[in-house]
């Protein structure tokens, strides 16, 4: 482990983050509100800390980063970015007077979780509102992927960083060079985002709200600028646009790239995408059917609210247009289970990811099959290709760790005096990067009431979920630190 090198890269990442603060600063200037000073200070502190770190360690050069170093850079880098991202909130004060609250909001942003400690979202400055949305957008595709795309010096080492930040059971390199791959992904991401801004503005949403909501839809983040989340706008058109873009954000971005390159069947040919879309449509229908007559009298409203909530939770966005805690038990349970399933691998969504769940089911079927035919030779296949044994092992390990860490964290949270359904759903909602849960942290409530150490625990859960367990948990294995 070459610590100087690791620190120099983290220094650069911090400086890049600091530079992005110029955007909320401009928003603050534009609206002449109280956010100008906090952002000015935060930006100065972030950029200078980053540069100081870089200049102290810059002599350390490395051409190849080991997998271990790549994981260390990403895990520590994300923690550091979360800390600096919290600065503007903390400096603004108000509901963010405790640092842990500012940090919770910041990490919830970067990890695209969307859980908030704010009781009155509309009470904070425009600059901070914009920053909340922007960090979700940056965190969605990954600030390290962004750095790999724009900073040439990361070069070859960029690959290890990319793999640690965008973990995928079956890695996919779109272009021969990692820099081009990162660039392509960001371009696709920006292009789809542009489409959403245009559609939202065409429906009559103001430019500020359109931009902020796009910045939180595309990364499947879920922060809203309104207290009532998307329900505030109360428009079937906006609900529809957001459903479409949440689903798009939940699909593997390499498929978007292939589609844009002219491969119109890309979505259909990918078995994970078919599985994901199948689940989306199936659950939409079941929930709408369940709601019809019990909560909503018209089929139209049942479908509108039901499908919005299914898509919002399944893609791990976490917007709300209805208080689903008033819904029938089956619908609630479906939403709770959706939190675990999550979106596609290679998308901006969280959760366990459809691909892993699919592989797990296929593996189970294979086991059953070989009980019936003990001599059968059978491979787990995805899209007609056999899945290598080591990929299968890593997927099973991931699922075991996910469930194990979920169990451990929820018991810990309950031990801090939080009630049963809240602890259970708060951990599911943060480790899956969704946002709202049930009980005390339901769609119309927030995370302010979670005890001090509980917030730290959930911050850790959000990072675990965003970096897909391994990258974070590996830092906690003593063997990792051994020379």
């Amino acid at each position, binding site marked *: 482990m070459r610590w100087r090198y690791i620190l120099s890269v983290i220094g650069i990442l911090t400086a890049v983050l600091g530079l992005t603060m110029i955007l909320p600063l401009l928003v603050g200037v534009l609206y002449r509100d109280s956010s100008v000073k906090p952002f000015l200070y935060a930006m100065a502190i972030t950029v200078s800390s980053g540069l100081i770190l870089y200049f102290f360690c810059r002599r350390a050069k490395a051409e190849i980063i080991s997998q271990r170093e790549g994981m260390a850079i990403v895990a520590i880098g994300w923690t550091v970015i979360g800390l600096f991202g919290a600065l503007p909130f903390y400096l603004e004060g108000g509901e963010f007077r405790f640092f842990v609250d500012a940090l919770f909001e910041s990490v919830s942003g970067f990890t695209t979780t969307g859980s908030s400690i704010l009781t009155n979202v509309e009470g904070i400055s425009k600059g901070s509102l914009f920053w909340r949305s922007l960090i979700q957008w940056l965190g969605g595709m990954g600030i390290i992927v962004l750095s790999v795309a724009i900073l040439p010096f990361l070069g070859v080492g960029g690959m290890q960083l990319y793999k640690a930040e965008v973990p995928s059971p079956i890695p996919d*390199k779109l272009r021969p*060079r990692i820099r*081009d791959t990162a660039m392509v992904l960001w371009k696709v991401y920006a292009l789809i985002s542009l489409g959403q801004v245009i559609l939202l503005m065409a429906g009559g949403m103001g430019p500020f709200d359109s931009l902020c909501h796009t910045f939180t839809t595309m990364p499947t983040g879920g922060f809203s600028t309104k207290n009532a989340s998307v329900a505030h706008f109360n428009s079937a058109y906006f609900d529809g646009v957001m459903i479409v873009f949440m689903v798009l954000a939940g699909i593997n971005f390499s498929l978007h790239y292939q589609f844009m390159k002219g491969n119109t069947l890309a979505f259909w040919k990918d078995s994970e995408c078919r599985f994901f879309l199948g689940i989306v449509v199936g659950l939409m229908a079941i929930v709408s059917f369940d709601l019809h007559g019990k909560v909503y009298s018209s089929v139209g409203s049942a479908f509108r609210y039901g499908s919005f909530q299914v898509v919002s939770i399944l893609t791990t966005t976490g917007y709300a247009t209805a208080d689903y805690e008033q819904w029938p038990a089956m619908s609630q349970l479906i939403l709770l289970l959706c939190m675990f399933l999550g979106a596609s691998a290679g998308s901006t969504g969280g959760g366990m990811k459809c691909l892993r769940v699919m592989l797990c089911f296929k593996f189970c079927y294979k086991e059953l099959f070989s009980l019936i035919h003990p001599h059968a030779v059978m491979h787990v296949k995805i899209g007609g290709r056999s899945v290598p044994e080591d990929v299968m092992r890593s997927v099973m390990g991931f699922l075991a760790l996910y469930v194990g860490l979920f169990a451990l964290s929820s018991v810990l949270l309950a031990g801090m005096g939080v009630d049963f359904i809240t602890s259970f759903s708060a951990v599911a909602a943060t480790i899956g990067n969704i946002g709202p849960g049930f009980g005390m942290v339901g769609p119309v409530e927030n995370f302010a009431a979670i005890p001090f150490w509980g917030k730290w625990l959930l911050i850790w859960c959000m990072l675990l979920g965003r970096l897909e367990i391994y990258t974070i948990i590996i830092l906690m294995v003593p063997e990792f630190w051994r020379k």
Partner: protein
Amino acid sequence: MKIVIVGAGEVGFHIASHLARENKDVVVIDQDAAAIRRLSENIDVQVIQASGSSPAALMEAGIKSAELMLAVTNSDETNLVACLVSDMLSPNTKKLARIRAADFDEFHETFKIKAPRIETVINPEIEVVKTIVQMMSVPGAVDVGEFADGRVKLIGVRLEKHEKAIGIPLSELSARVKQKAPLISAIIREDKLVIPRGNDKLLAGDLVYFMSEDRNLTDYLSFFDKHSEPVKRVLIIGGGRIGYRLARLLEDQPVYTKIIEKNSERCKVIADKLNKAVILHGDGSDQMLLSEENIHEMDMVVALTGEEETNILSSLLVKQMGAKKTITMISRFSYFPLMERIGLDQIVSPRLSAINSILQHIRRGKVLSARSIKGEEAEVLEAMAMETSDIVDKPLNVIGMPKGSLVTGIIRDDQFIIPSGSSIIKPGDRIIIFAVKQAIPKIEKILAVKLEFF
């Protein structure tokens, strides 16, 4: 520039890492999951796990937009089929293939014109024999390369203790030693490459590279106390395909050749084909046999068996028994750094030779030939100075060559000029440039004709 490489073995791996470092778009196809993983974890290239001759895999790799396809798997047949398929899918892609079997030797030219239309067939065995012959031609040198169609040689010599050149700044070499000194192009010191400046000093143990025409070669070699008596007696250990090729080449030269081969059947086969060489049936590491055959009288012993460990040990043994020079063939790159330490300086490797000749072809165009030295730290490029490139009509010290590069020779008409800071390159000159790997993309830019960008 997009390049598709079929085969992620040692050759594929090293060429891919060479090219990826120069920001070229490289896609590698191989069937072996472990080889693919080694590649994707260490090098910034795209990988596809599939058979290299599969049309679907080649399409996926984007053969249609590729400028170059290299078929370098271990199997000649796969390489040929991969070339054939590429030719059907994308006739405009240039194809290079590694083909080892001697059966195809006479067909290399035919392949160029007919069906697979392979631009260049690379036979590592032929390449390695070429390298051995080049080394034999300058016995004092550790490394020998040829430029300008063989008129200019690149020579690498190892400095030993008590040599007169040691400790003198390069700019004062000729004056202090009172003998014409060559322009030192590069020094390899403790496995690191140094492009020297005038005030750098030479140290014992340095591997020093310089360029020389044939007629100055003896003078330059004696400057470093190396003498180049021609090789008269050669012992080849291992009568395999490479040993046989070498022996057959030496038959036309005034060289007395002996071959030691372990396998008696193989001995009969080569004895049947060779007329002058003495074929000995026995073990190359058998002391009795070696002293019986007057090993201490040998000018050169070449260890070419299929096992690199045997080659290394045999070379050490014959050196101790009094053989003057040895050339050792090894194939595993990870052994290279060891060789200097155990005193085996002259090494050949079929893979390195293949890599060198492939590089030459990749660079072709503006660059006439290229050669990597000592592992892959640096390359020597021979290029044509184009009329509108940045490099012409200005004194060299004004051009601002990239850091880690040096113009070490200019060939104008039939003249070989050793340049100084005030030399001016004229359009149509051929220039020889030494460059560390980091400087190569910049060098390519300098050499490029400006109009190409419009």
